[in-house]
């Protein structure tokens, strides 16, 4: 497919710092290759801004191949843009037409404060992970090989699907309630399904949910928006599993 060049108008959220009041600014960008990714388009815009002696737009990015979970962006009313099952770095400008106006906003959540422009602080996810998203292993030199424990194929598959979560926060961003339950559900499930994770299962789910609530995320109302927007296609089945694990944990914790 031959590449084309399009001219677009961008409405981008600019905010100096977490305390400043932000606003949407309008930018015109010409000669954008339809083969470029959305982030490359933003690079092009930043180059233009630097040449005009303006401050470039701050946005998160790292691997640019859809596995690190760093890129975010709420593009035209949807997390990671118009497609499903992709991150923003995997979104290409061929999804847009010449003359389009594109809205770009940061993730909106009380638990994800804006650092600058489009970059948000997602360390709330780190703190949830630290509250229980791990298995304790003796590392004295006699660590058991994880693969020595037989695991049913179906369970291994489900655990792996849950573990595909890259913690990008698209679930929180697209949830009307700003709920983090798909993230926490995936992290709880990935261990709850495996024999190594069962030992600490009760404390894990209780601690992770407690941390999730403390961070100020909203509640799940089962709209299903998160699983549609999740770049890794993580199912809300994981939220149901977390709900089950939580009930079990809350009832049996001594």
């Amino acid at each position: 497919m031959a590449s084309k060049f399009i001219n677009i108008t961008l409405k981008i959220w600019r905010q100096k710092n977490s305390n400043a009041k932000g606003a949407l600014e309008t930018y015109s960008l010409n000669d954008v290759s339809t083969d470029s990714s959305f982030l490359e388009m933003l690079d092009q815009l930043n180059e233009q801004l630097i040449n005009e002696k303006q401050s470039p737009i701050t946005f998160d990015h790292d691997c640019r191949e859809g596995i690190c979970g760093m890129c975010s962006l709420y593009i035209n009313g949807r997390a990671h843009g118009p497609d499903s099952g992709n991150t923003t770095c995997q979104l290409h400008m061929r999804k847009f037409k010449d003359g389009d106006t594109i809205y770009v906003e940061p993730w909106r959540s009380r638990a994800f404060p804006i650092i600058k422009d489009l970059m948000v602080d997602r360390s709330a996810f780190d703190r949830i992970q630290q509250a229980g998203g791990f298995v304790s292993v003796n590392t004295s030199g006699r660590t058991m090989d994880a693969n020595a424990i037989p695991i049913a194929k179906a369970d291994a598959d489900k655990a792996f699907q849950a573990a595909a979560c890259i913690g990008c926060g698209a679930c929180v961003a697209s949830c009307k309630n700003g709920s983090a339950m798909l993230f926490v559900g995936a992290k709880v499930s990935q261990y709850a399904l495996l024999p190594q994770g069962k030992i600490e299962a009760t404390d894990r789910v209780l601690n992770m949910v407690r941390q999730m609530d403390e961070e100020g995320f909203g509640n799940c109302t089962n709209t299903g928006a998160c699983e549609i927007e999740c770049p890794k296609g993580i199912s809300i089945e994981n939220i149901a599993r977390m709900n089950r694990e939580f009930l079990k944990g809350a009832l049996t914790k001594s």
Partner: protein
Amino acid sequence: MSNSVLFKSSIAKKYFMALTGLFLCTFLVGHLLGNLQLIFKTGEEGRRAFNEYAYFMGHNVFIKVLSYVTYIALIIHAVDGIMLTIQNKKARPVKYAYNNPKANSGTASRNMAILGTLILVFLATHMANFWWKAKITEEIPLHSLVKTVDYPVGQNPATGEMITKPIEVTHYLNTNGTYQQFKVKDPSTGQEQKLFDIKNKHEFYDITSGVKIGEGYKDLHTVVMTFFDKNNSSALFGVLFYVISMIVLGYHLWHGFASAFQSLGLNHPLYTPIIKKIGMAFSIVVPFLFAIIPVIIYMNH
């Protein structure tokens, strides 16, 4: 308390929402079965069947306990819903300037709080119209029936035959199942004669001995029929409001029914599609049957 998470955490709030919601679904079915009696039997037979049913619902101990559980479930469902909505609004203090939620979620699922509030408004008017009258003010008249009866007024001295005269007799339906003669009115003289006393709005007492001889049924059937009667100027508005409220209820159930199972952790590739189908059927059939009752009453009058 180690189990305080069962009340405080966000997930626990969802359990309560789901459990009370599903309980209220069973209440809907019970209420619907009662209401359907309004259209399946007609005339005095239908009126009697409905009023006897209403009496049973108001006096059976099990039903009474169940009704208090229903009030409590409703309050928990509403209060919990309000608390969850406030928390959810707080979780996103700055709204998106441009949002496209249609792309990833259903309309009903995003508007449960608004739909629930509308249902609460309906419930308030519904209870003011029927429940308040039946339970609190007892404004409801007793189940009565005026029959013209040939009354013996004397004996023909020549033939020995009884001489009768048509007289209007007001009967009250007694909870023992008989129609009890209450008032006798001579149509030629217009004179009325009471045959027993009514105390506490529905208890029958013998005039001379003062002994309780029975109890009357409240005529809730007539209250309902008059409320939706075409000749009643406010009936059309009443019917429309009822039908619209049932559509709102349908939307609420469209998301709520299956959602409750998900909140309780019941998600399974085998059963979830079945639960979703049952939820869809439930959310269409139950509000539809509720809604056609006032429409049929309105059209038949």
